[in-house]
C-alpha cells in the first residue's frame, strides 16, 4: 500500500513537472508574440523597467525626486 502511494506521488510530481515545462517553455513564449503582450514587453524593455520589482530598491532606476517637480508643484508652502 505504501509503495503504491509512493508511486502515485512520483506520478503526480512527474506529471506536474511535465505540464510546467510545456507551459513555461512552449505556451508562455508563444503568448509573447501576441500583439498587446508583445507591445507591453517591448515598451518595458525599451524603458528599462523591471515590473517584477517587489520594492523600489529592486528597480533599474531609483525613483528620486523629479528635477522638474518644483517648477510645477509647491512642495513646502
Amino acid at each position, binding site marked *: 500500500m505504501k509503495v503504491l502511494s509512493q508511486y502515485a506521488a512520483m506520478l503526480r510530481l512527474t506529471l506536474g513537472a511535465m505540464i510546467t515545462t510545456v507551459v513555461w517553455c512552449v505556451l508562455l*513564449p508563444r503568448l509573447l508574440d501576441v500583439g498587446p503582450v508583445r507591445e*507591453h514587453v517591448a515598451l518595458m524593455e525599451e524603458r528599462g523597467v523591471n515590473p517584477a520589482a*517587489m520594492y523600489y530598491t529592486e*528597480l533599474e532606476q531609483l525613483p528620486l*525626486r523629479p528635477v522638474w517637480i518644483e517648477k510645477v508643484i509647491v512642495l513646502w508652502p
Partner: protein
Amino acid sequence: MNPPRTRYGLHEDVAAVIIGLTTVALALAITWQARPQDDAGNRDRYAKGWPTPAASWIGTPKTWTDSPLTAFQDADGNFDVAPVAVGMAWVVAVGVLGVVLGGRTARTAVLGFVLLAGLTCLAYLLASQKLVTYYNLEYPLWALAVGLFVGNAAGAPRWLSPALVGEFFIKTGLVIFGAEVLGSRLLALGLPGVMTAWIVTPIVLVSTYLFGVHVLRIPSRSLCMTLSADMSVCGVSAAIATGAACRAKKEEISLTIGLSLFFTVIMMVVMPAVIREMGLDPIVGGAWIGGTIDATGAVVAAGESLGSLLGEAAGKQAAEVAATVKMIQNSMIGLVAFAVAAYWAGWIDRDPNAPRSTLITEVWRRFPRFILGFLAASLVCTFLHAAGPEQELWIEGATGGITSKLRGWLFCVGFVCIGLQTNFRELAPMLASGRPVVLYLAGQSLNLALTLAMASLTFGWLFRKVVEP
C-alpha cells in the same frame, strides 16, 4: 518535529536579529571598503549608489524566453552559475546558523536546507520567464506554488521537517530588509506626497481592517490586517512585514499574496487606459497610479504605459510621479509594521484572564523581537542616508547591491517552506466564502476613490503652481 532546543538555544527572533544585523553591518562595511576615491558624492556618476564588488557575487536566474538554460548564461552566452550558487549557499548557511543558534544540531537539517535551496532556485527560475516577469508575477507567488505543489502532490518527506523553518527565514529577511526602509524617502515629494501617503494610506488601512472584522465578519483578524496592509501600503512586501508582525497563519499570507498579484496585474494593464479616457492631468494620474497599485514594479510599468499613451513630456512626468509616490508608500512599511506589532501585542493577543499589568509591560512582553531588529536597521540606515550625499550613495550601494538580493533569497525560501506546510484543504474554506475577495475589492475601491480625491486636491489644485513651464 524539530529536535529539542538545548538550554543554551536562542529564541528564533533573537537569532534572526543577530544574523540580520550582522549581514547589514557586513554589507555596509564591504561597500565602504570599496568606496570610490574621487567624486564619491556625485549622484550623476553613481545613479544607483556606490558600486560594490559584492553585487556581482550573488544573483538570481536572469530573464529567459523559451530556454531556462539561458537564465544561467552571461551576456556573451557563457554559463555563469556562480551568483545563483552563492544565493543557494546563502540559504543553506542562514538555515544552518539559525538551527545552531537555536541550540539544535544542524546535522539532521543540512540535507533539507540543500533541497529547499534547490526549490527556491526553481521558484526564481519560474518567476524569471519573460512573460511572467513583465506582468509582475513576483517570485513569492512561484515560491508558494512550488511549495504547495510539492507538499500536496508528494508530501514533504519526514527528513525535511527540521529544515522547514520558513518563519525564521522570513524574520531574518525582514531584519535585513529594514536597511532598505528609509524614513528620509517620505519627504521626497514634499507636503503633497506626505498628504497622499500619510493621510490616505492609514485611513484605507484602518477602514479596510474594520470593514473585514465588523461588517464582513471574517473570523481571522490577522487575515484582515495582512490583506489591508498589502492593498493599502505596497503589496507583497507589506504583506510579509505585517503578516509577520501580527503572526498571520501561513495560508492567510498565501491567500493575500495570490489575491494581491491577481488584481495588481489587472490594475497595471487597465489603469493607464482609464486615466487617458478620463482625461486626467498627467501628474494627478501618476500620483493616482502610485498610490493605488500594490506592487512597486507594477506601478513603474503602469506609469511608463501611461507615459506612452500621453506622449513624451507629459508621459515622463506621470511615470516619475507614480514611481516617487510609490517609493514614499514603500517607506511607510516600518511604521506600519511597528504599529501593527504593538497593537497585536497590547490588545489582540492580550489574555483578559491574565493578572493585570500595565499596557506597556504587556506590549513589551509580547512584542515580536525581530521587529526591533527591523526597526534598528531601518533607523541606522535612515540616519546614515540623511547625513550627506556620500552617505546617501553608500547606503544605496549597499542595499541595492547586496542586502536586497540576500533578503530576496530568504523571502523566497520562506515562501517555499510556507507552501510546503500549507494544505490546499485549509485554503479552500477561506476561498469558498468569497469574503477575502470582497474585502480586497471594497478596500481597493475606497483606496482608488480617496487617492484620486487627494491627488486631485494636492497635485492638481492646492499645491499646483499657476504658471506652468
